[in-house]
């Protein structure tokens, strides 16, 4: 830049800095985003969801079509959904389809309803043959720092051959058993090649590798699964810090 350009730049920067940044702007944005009175819909669509049946995992994929190193399972789980709908009354109507009445707006530990999406799912084998179909609803709750998704899946017996598989803890309430899972997930670029050690971990079901991220990122997922009225229920999140006990307490509130 020449001298004049530098001078103009400096003057504009000074003029910009003279505007004091408003306090609480982020809080105001959050309020508007969750303002249900206006009937506004948060236009967030859940991307492809990939699931490994044997491990009863859920992995919210980072973008588009994402491959998944399925370990011992040779099945692929695909998932399409509606946009995230922030209207709680719509959620109450949608959940009736699942013959459920779990319309919780807020958990006692502070996780608050932020929206839901529903849609269909299909399990396919390695050759793309459909093994089974289901319908599901995903409800997102946030405590300001972490998000957790409560899911109900109907007609998914082919997806979950055993929700107890690889569970690290079990809890019981009445006749219902809750299975807690905690697993490492690694998001990697599509051209990523697993190390021999990683291949062993994937084969043993201790590591899940999701393809499609722009760079390598590791996350630990915490989830709890239970079966009720023929539907599969789960609470799932990444790096939430929630223990099995805490997830069990949340599950009991539903």
């Amino acid at each position, binding site marked *: 830049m020449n001298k004049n350009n530098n001078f103009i730049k400096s003057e504009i920067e*000074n003029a910009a800095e*003279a505007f004091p940044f408003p306090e609480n*702007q982020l809080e105001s944005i959050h309020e508007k985003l969750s303002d249900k009175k206006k009937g506004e819909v948060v236009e967030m669509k859940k991307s492809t969801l990939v699931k490994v049946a044997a491990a009863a995992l859920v992995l*919210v*994929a980072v973008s588009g079509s994402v491959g998944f190193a399925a370990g011992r399972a040779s099945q692929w789980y695909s998932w399409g959904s509606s946009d995230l709908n922030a209207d709680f009354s719509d959620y109450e109507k949608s959940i009736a389809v699942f013959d459920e009445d779990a319309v919780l707006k807020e958990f006692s530990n502070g996780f608050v309803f932020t929206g839901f999406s529903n849609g269909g799912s299909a399990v396919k084998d390695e050759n793309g043959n459909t093994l089974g179909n289901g319908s599901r609803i995903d409800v997102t709750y946030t405590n300001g720092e972490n998000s957790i998704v409560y899911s109900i899946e109907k007609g998914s017996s082919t997806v979950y051959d055993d929700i107890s598989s690889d569970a690290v803890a079990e809890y019981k309430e009445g006749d219902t058993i809750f299975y807690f899972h905690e697993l490492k997930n690694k998001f990697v670029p599509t051209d990523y090649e697993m190390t021999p050690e990683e291949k062993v971990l994937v084969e043993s079901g201790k590591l899940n590798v999701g393809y499609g991220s*722009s760079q390598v990122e590791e996350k630990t997922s915490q989830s709890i699964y239970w079966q009720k009225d023929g539907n599969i229920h789960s609470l799932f999140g990444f790096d939430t810090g929630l223990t099995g006990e805490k997830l069990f307490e949340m599950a009991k509130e539903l």
Partner: protein
Amino acid sequence: MEDSILISRIQSGDASAFDIIYEKYKEKIYRTACLLCGNSADGDDISQETWISAYRNIKKLKNPESFVPYLYSILKRCAFKRFRKRKLEIPTETLPEFDIQNVPSPLSEVLQRERSREVSRAILSLEKRQRMVVILYYYNEFNIDEISAIMNAPPGTVKSRLHSARNKLSSLILKEDFYE
């Protein structure tokens, strides 16, 4: 953390990632909006609308690497929409009062505020597209191609607008009696 990862996380439903990316760009977005409209109240509204629209439409962003031009193109749209609604092509003589705090200050600070106010007036005297180009170029340090993508205008048009705006600004803020 890279923008692309944060965007992917937002797209997959991780609302906390939005707060991180907001922190990264909030001041530039806010002050760009303020420079565009000349006052902090409209600047606050426009920047909030920008963030809300960016969040709600984030799934439409196919390439997470393009988040910055995506964000600024929304800012441009929000600002121009407000200009249309409020006919905010503000002639210099009807400028809203610039933010000056009513607190005792050293003379140098008072002069700096007055200088900033005059520069803001000079920017506002530009046609809105010229104004946007100048702010993107000088304040946000985007190059011609990046501005072209944000403005959805050919690079030649951007250069032309920048040239005209620079000449006009120079004549206003470089003149000898500007600070007198």
